Each structure stands twice: as C-alpha cells, then as structure tokens.
C-alpha cells in the first residue's frame, strides 16, 4: 500500500557545480528516513527534486519504480511541509487545510468535513474559521501539517519543519509528526540538520555532506559504526586515533586493539562513552586525568595517555579529578577503523 521512494544517482546543478552530486537512496514503503546534514549540504535541494520543484540534471526519482521526472509537481503524489508554516494569508485556516482537496476537485461538504478531521488530528479543533496570524507559530505549523496530510499523500516531504519553533514546542510537534506518520503509514523523507531530531524520529538516517551521501543506516549504525571520519566528526563525540592496521590488529597510541579492517594506515574511532575506567591490573593503557566537566547525569573527562588525549564520559558516581592516575580500556567491540 505504501510507496517505495528511490533516488537514483541524482545530480542537481544550479550552474556553479553540482549541489547534489550523485545521491542514491532507497526509502522503504511506510518508513521515515531522515536526510541529515549541515546547512548547505544539498539536503533541501534533494527534497525539492523529489517534490518536483526543481529538475535534476541527471539521475531519477522513482515512486514504486515509476519515474517522476516527467510528472509536474502538482501531479506527484507528494505533500510537503516547509520550515515556515506558509499558510495562505488570504484564506481561513479551514480553507488552507482544504486547499489540496479543492485542487483535487473534492466537493465543498466533503472538503469541510475532511479539513475538520485533519485539524482534529493535529489537536486543533475549532480553528477552521480563524485567519492565519491569529494562531501561534507552533499551531500554524500543525495546521501546515494537517494541510499536507489531508490529501493523503503517498510520500510526505518535511523540510526542517521544526527548526523555526522554540525548543519545547519542537519536541511536542516532533512527537505529533512521529505519531501521525505511523498512523498514516506514509513514506516520509525528512530533512534536518539536527542529529538528535534525526536519530529520534527516523527509521534510517542518510547523512549528507557536500552534496553526497556519506552513510545511510539506522541511527545506531551511524552513531556507533561511522563509515568515514567525516561521519564521526559530524556526530561529534568520537575519539579518533591515528595508527596502523596489520594482521587484524590496530596499533597506535592506545596500544594494540583487535579490529576487522584492511591493512594499512587507519584511524581508530571510539565513542567517548565506550571508553572505560578499569582496575590497575586490567588490560588497558595508563593515563592521567587532565580536566573534567560535570554535566549532572554524566561527567566528561579528558585524559592524557602517553601524549594522546582521550575523551571519555563516565558515571557521576565515578569520582575523577584532574591529576588522577587511571587505567583506560577501549573495548574492541566498540571500535571502528576508517581511512583518514
């Protein structure tokens, strides 16, 4: 029932070099995929190409295998929600929500009824007669969501729909989107620059950097097994150690760590929270705590392991102060080796 969205080697070019450079992505029917990346990486452009608002230079956009390139945006079975609510200022809220139905030739009575239902689903009953500008930003964005969902699109496109909202509203509207998306079972492509938003909402995350897809996988895969150094850097909190891989073993500042990687120079990535403080006789490396930062539920610490700085996150019950001698263990199962 739900639609599979496939992007094939998509290239979008505004004239000064490609903005989207060979993006290939498969979105399983009914799933929610987040296109994550810093601003200017081409994720919104990709979304606009899926919506048909711009024509790719090459590649293809397929819904259930049907190419959409020759299909005008208004004829694609998509609905899009933008960063701003973009309510049509000269129409009532009800007419705004019913707009897509009107364009599809749905009769007045049914339009009214379905718009009403859609507004109830976004928890805004009884605002149909109000005008845009009489609602708060969060309410308007919910109206915008209702307006997109009321046409029962096969594919829902969300372009940073929460980034204009303040923090508390953002979480609220995010939960609503997650719930509505599950209920409608609509295939959803969701653009965001916020990694938390992406990892919380999405079934799969596609990390985009400089117009290319860097890695596609579950949030956990991206977080714990970054495919490249750039992915690890985007997610921020990973330690990266230069070293050499030989015979299934990485050797560097942290000693020898058994890994599955090809021989040659390799960067060992290990998340800060995976680094453990162990007893003096356990396997590991000796280090001296340089400084700590208390963050309530956790404590971040930085330690010097023979000239290499290691960042780690420990339990607040572990009392560490600068100058402490500790033994650090890096569990091999939490390590990944990538090329520099």
């Amino acid at each position, binding site marked *: 029932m739900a639609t599979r969205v496939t992007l094939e080697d998509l290239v979008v070019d505004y004239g000064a070099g490609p903005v989207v450079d060979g993006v290939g992505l498969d979105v399983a029917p009914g799933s929610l995929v987040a296109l994550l990346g810093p601003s200017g990486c081409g994720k919104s452009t990709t979304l*606009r190409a899926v*919506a*048909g*608002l711009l024509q790719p230079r090459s590649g293809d956009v397929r819904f259930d295998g049907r190419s959409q390139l020759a299909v*005008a*945006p*208004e*004829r*694609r079975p*998509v*609905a*899009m929600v*933008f960063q*701003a609510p*973009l309510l*049509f*200022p*000269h129409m009532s809220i009800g007419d705004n929500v019913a*707009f*897509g139905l009107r*364009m*599809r030739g749905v009769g007045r009575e049914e339009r009214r009824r379905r718009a009403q239902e859609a507004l109830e689903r976004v928890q805004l009953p009884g605002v149909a007669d109000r005008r845009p500008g009489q609602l708060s930003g969060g309410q308007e964005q919910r109206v915008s969501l209702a*307006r*997109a969902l009321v*046409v029962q699109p096969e594919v829902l*496109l969300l372009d940073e729909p929460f980034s204009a909202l303040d923090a508390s509203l953002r979480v609220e509207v995010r939960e609503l989107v997650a719930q509505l998306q599950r209920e409608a079972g609509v295939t959803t492509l969701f653009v965001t620059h916020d990694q938390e938003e992406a990892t919380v909402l999405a079934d799969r995350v596609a990390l985009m950097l400089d117009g290319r897809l860097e890695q596609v996988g579950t949030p956990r895969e991206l977080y714990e097994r970054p495919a490249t150094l750039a992915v690890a850097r985007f997610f921020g909190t990973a330690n990266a150690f230069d070293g050499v891989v030989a015979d299934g073993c990485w050797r560097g500042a942290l000693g020898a760590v058994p890994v599955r990687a090809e021989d040659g120079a390799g960067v060992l990535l290990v998340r800060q929270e995976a680094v453990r403080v162990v007893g003096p006789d356990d396997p590991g490396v000796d280090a001296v705590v340089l400084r700590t930062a208390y963050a309530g539920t956790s404590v971040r610490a930085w330690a010097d392991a023979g000239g290499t700085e290691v960042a780690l996150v420990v339990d607040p019950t572990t009392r560490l102060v600068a100058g402490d001698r500790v033994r650090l263990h890096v569990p091999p199962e939490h390590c990944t080796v990538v090329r520099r």
Partner: protein
Amino acid sequence: MSVLAGPAVPVVSPPRGRASRSWSAAVRAVSLPLLLAGLVLPFLPLLLWAVAERYPYPALTPTVTSSRPLRLLADPTSEVLTGLVNSVSIAVAVAIIAALIGLSAGRALGLHQFRGKRLVQFLLLAPVIVPGLAVTLGIQVFFIRYGLSDTRRGVVLVHLLAAVPYVSLVMSSVYANLDLRLEDQARTLGAGPVQVFLRITLPAVAPGLAVAGLFAFLISWGEYVLTLLVGGGAVKTLPLLLYSYLGSTDTPVAAALGLALVVPPVLLLAVTSRLLSGEGTPLAGFGRT
C-alpha cells in the same frame, strides 16, 4: 535620604518630557490645520465660482449665484458629457492595460535577475526623465502613419507610455515582498501554474495591483499635452475641455469643469485609501504614518 534620592531622579525628568510632549502637540495643533488649509483652501474659489453667475472683484462671495455651470455638466447636448465619457473610458483602459503589463513586468523586475536588468530598469524610467512632450513629438509620426492619431486607441497608447513606468516600478516592489515559497507550497498541494497564479499569487499582489492601477488611472485622467498631441483635438477629454474653457471668458463653467475633474479621483482615492495606508499596506513605506 539616600533612599529617597533614588526615585527622586525620575521625578525630575517627567516635567521635561511633558514639556516636550506638549510642545510637539502644539506644533501638531498648528501645523495640521495649516496643512489642511493649504490643501483645501485652493478648492474654495473653485466651489464658489462653480455656483456663480456674477462674481465681481471686491466681493468675497458671488453677487449672483446660479446653477447654470453645474447644470451644464449634466447637459447631454454639451461637450462635457462626451469629455467625461472619453476621460473615464480612456483612463479605465489605461489602468487595466498598465496593470496587466505591470503584473508581468513587475514580476520580472522584482523577482528575477537577468542580463540587462539595470538597462531595462533605466529604459522604464526614461519616459519619466525625458519630458513627455519630447517623447511624443518623436513618436507622433508613427501614430499618424499607423492611423492611431486622432483616435481613442492612440490616446490610450500614449497614456500607457506615461503610466507603465510607474506601474512597473510599483509592481516590482510588490513582487519583491512576495513570498515565493507560498507558490511552491501550493504546487506541492496539487495546484497547477494557472491555479497558483489565480488562487495564491494574484490575491497576494491584488492590493498592490489596485494601487498601481489607480496610479495609471490618475496619470491618464490628468494628462493634457499627450492627449492634445495624439488626439489632435478629435479626442476631447476633460482636461482638454477645461483648458479651452479657461481660455474663454466663462469662468463659472471652467470652475464647474474643474470640479468634475477633481471629484472622481478624490472619490477613487477615498475608496482605495485603505490600500495605501494602515495594516497590510501593499507598498512598504508608502503612505504609512
């Protein structure tokens, strides 16, 4: 004492603020009536003359009043009615055509970057900079050649020459304020290009379009020289009639004609003033207090 000294400071300053406030109020109290007087008083003699039969020099008001001048306006056998019909039909045609041109030209100028845009902007302003008389003298030959001279069509065309620059500039600023994402949003909701224009773009620019059309109407309504040159006296509009009566000795009729020339635009402005000022002003910074 020191406790009291703190709040004492702001107590000192309000009288000064009050003084400056009352000063500005006084300026307003004087300047506003002066401004109104300056705007309204010139029309007073016009009103008096329009109901006069005899109005000799030292008298403050007409010595003999009459409804003759005003009746002449409504007299179907006089030229006034023809002039009114000509003026209205030409000005309305100019307003509509100029608005249509401004609708597309304004979009191009307001929203798109293209080669030679500055040149186009300059050329658009050229008829404003170059005196209309010079322009018209130059193109009159062509009007004669194409049989547009002495016709209403010709007059409409030459009025457009004067009106289109203003309308295009007004519309370009209206379009510059248009949020194009609204059009994208409408497209993704199933509206084709025509629907987007009719249901989203047009309603959004409509107030500005009305203002632009009003400008075009007013430019055409008050035009004298261009009408005379191209109309050649065959197309008699109200300003032409007014000039010929001003040259004659019948001042009361000239005054009545003057009123006929003033009243319609004032009424039009009164109706559309909502668009020029207040909330949702279509022209940013235009007519705002």
